[in-house]
């Protein structure tokens, strides 16, 4: 057994990870949900690099999805929900892109998207469900027949069969599996042995990671092997699923990371204000993405005062009493 850092050859910087694994047109699954555990630091690096034509496959990814759409990196979107809760009931740049016809999009539901990732993670080509029957999710295609012929796009939105184990009529929808090119996960802990531990809700991050061809894990802390192996029941993802590790403390800011920090309400409101206006949004990107050349510079700009305000209290995992309006 190597004593330390079995992950040395996969440990890299944000830019290295983006250069090595994210390409124009790649199909990308984002970890997290609305304003929690979005892989923001690497998303900023993707925007800075100017990656184009991304095909996002998303359930309810909020902040990361919206800024990627707003920055013009996204060509195509499979989505269940574009919203940031009370901070933006509908994600503004996402909504506008759809209204302006600027992106190709197709709607599923959260469970459908999660099941599609589950199917991908199980290496099965589809998975049955009852959810969605009768709705326009099943009646209306988003993608054109031309798009359907492209690689990594399902040849049809759904299929339907009668349950072959039932004597009576019993229609079931079949959902096509997803196997994205890359999944991004932001985790609290990575062990020196490469084992990943997510604390709090995992959303569909684990299904997405196991379904993807390549997995980039950004994390708050890299911890000793002895720490991560003390209670393996708590661990989330084995080392052999991961292709790149990047250590970025506060790497989910302005979204939250359980046990580490809360979402940053001031920044989310600032973002919402900016997103409502094209020129203000351009300024936002200049200031917060293009104008900072490293994650460290970004954190300096956020400032120690705010980082301390959103710091999670160990007892509860969030920042009690934080002014969240």
């Amino acid at each position: 057994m190597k004593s330390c850092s079995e992950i040395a050859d996969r440990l890299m910087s944000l830019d290295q990870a983006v250069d090595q694994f994210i390409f124009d047109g790649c199909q990308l699954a984002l970890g997290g949900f609305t304003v929690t555990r979005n892989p923001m630091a690497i998303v900023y690096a993707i925007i800075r690099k100017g990656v184009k034509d991304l095909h996002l496959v998303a359930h309810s990814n909020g902040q990361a999805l919206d800024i990627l759409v707003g920055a013009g990196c996204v060509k195509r979107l499979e989505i269940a929900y574009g919203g940031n809760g009370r901070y933006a009931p509908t994600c503004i740049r996402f909504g506008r892109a759809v209204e302006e016809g600027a992106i190709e999009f197709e709607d599923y539901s959260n469970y459908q998207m999660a099941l599609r990732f589950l199917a991908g993670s199980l290496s099965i080509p589809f998975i049955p469900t009852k959810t969605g029957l009768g709705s326009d999710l099943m009646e209306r295609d988003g993608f054109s027949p031309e798009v359907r012929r492209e690689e990594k796009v399902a040849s049809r939105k759904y299929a339907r069969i009668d349950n072959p184990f039932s004597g009576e009529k019993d229609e079931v929808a079949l959902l096509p599996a997803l196997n994205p090119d890359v999944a991004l996960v932001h985790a609290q802990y990575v062990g020196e042995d490469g084992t990943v531990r997510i604390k709090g809700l995992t959303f569909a991050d684990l299904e997405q990671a196991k379904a993807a061809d390549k997995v980039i894990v950004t994390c708050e802390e890299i911890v000793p092997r002895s720490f991560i192996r003390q209670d393996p029941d708590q661990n989330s993802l084995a080392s052999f699923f991961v292709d790149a590790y990047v250590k970025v403390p506060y790497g989910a800011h302005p979204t939250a990371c359980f046990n580490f920090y809360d979402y940053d309400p001031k920044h989310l409101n600032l973002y919402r204000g900016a997103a409502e206006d094209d020129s203000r949004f351009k300024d936002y990107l200049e200031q917060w993405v293009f104008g900072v050349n490293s994650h460290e510079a970004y954190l300096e700009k956020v400032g120690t005062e705010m980082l301390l305000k959103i710091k999670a209290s160990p007892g509860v995992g969030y920042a009690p009493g934080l002014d969240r309006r």
Partner: protein
Amino acid sequence: MLNYSESEMMAIAAGRLIKDGDIVFAGTGVSILAATVAKRIYAPRAVVFFETGGIDPSLDEIPMTVADLRVMSGTALNSGLIEAFSTIAHRKLRTVAFLGAAQIDRYGNLNTTCIGDYHKPQKRFSGSGGGNDVASLASGVISFMQHEKRRFVEKLDYLTSVGWYRGGGSRRELGLKRGGALAVVTNLALLRFHDQTKEMYLAEYFPGVSPEQVRENTGFELDVSGAKEAVPPTAEELAILREEVDPQGLICQPPQ
């Protein structure tokens, strides 16, 4: 008579619909208040849970989204989307969900996707999220709506989440073996669905509102024949809502 706001009346009217032992799928906003009020007054054994996977959080503070850290704090169990939605669908549980929408039709079908053409909408909303899933799989759905003619429509621009579909037995014929729209709570009234036809009717109008006013704000024909006035919030209900559930006033501001 006590002084209270529209959203306080809505939270309390919805909370009263929860039965003890229900597994309550809560969203954010008024629905989380309704669920919490219900649990603290009428249904102490109800369990509040979220589509993101958090089961029975302590909710010492109000979550602002269903992925808020506050839905994973002090919980019985933290899991993920697959576990949450399969719980919603579980045949041994009575699972009740609160949903909001931009449009609703007479059968309780909901639109949270768009206004106008799907491919190039006049206004795009967030989309289904877990709405379609709980509408398909839960034992029942309670919807929150602003009561306006443009929201209570003859035909949805997009049918995101199935209620009673086309009425009568049509939901069951789709293959959805249980569930359907239980009630709609608006800023004016509580609406329910006829047993056979599954058409919406006015069950209770809120104090200060007339049945006629409800009809005028509904874009389809509404049966108001059996309607009665709702019981206003009690002092106990308001006290719990204001002092225990949302002391910061993040969701409901009490009337000035």
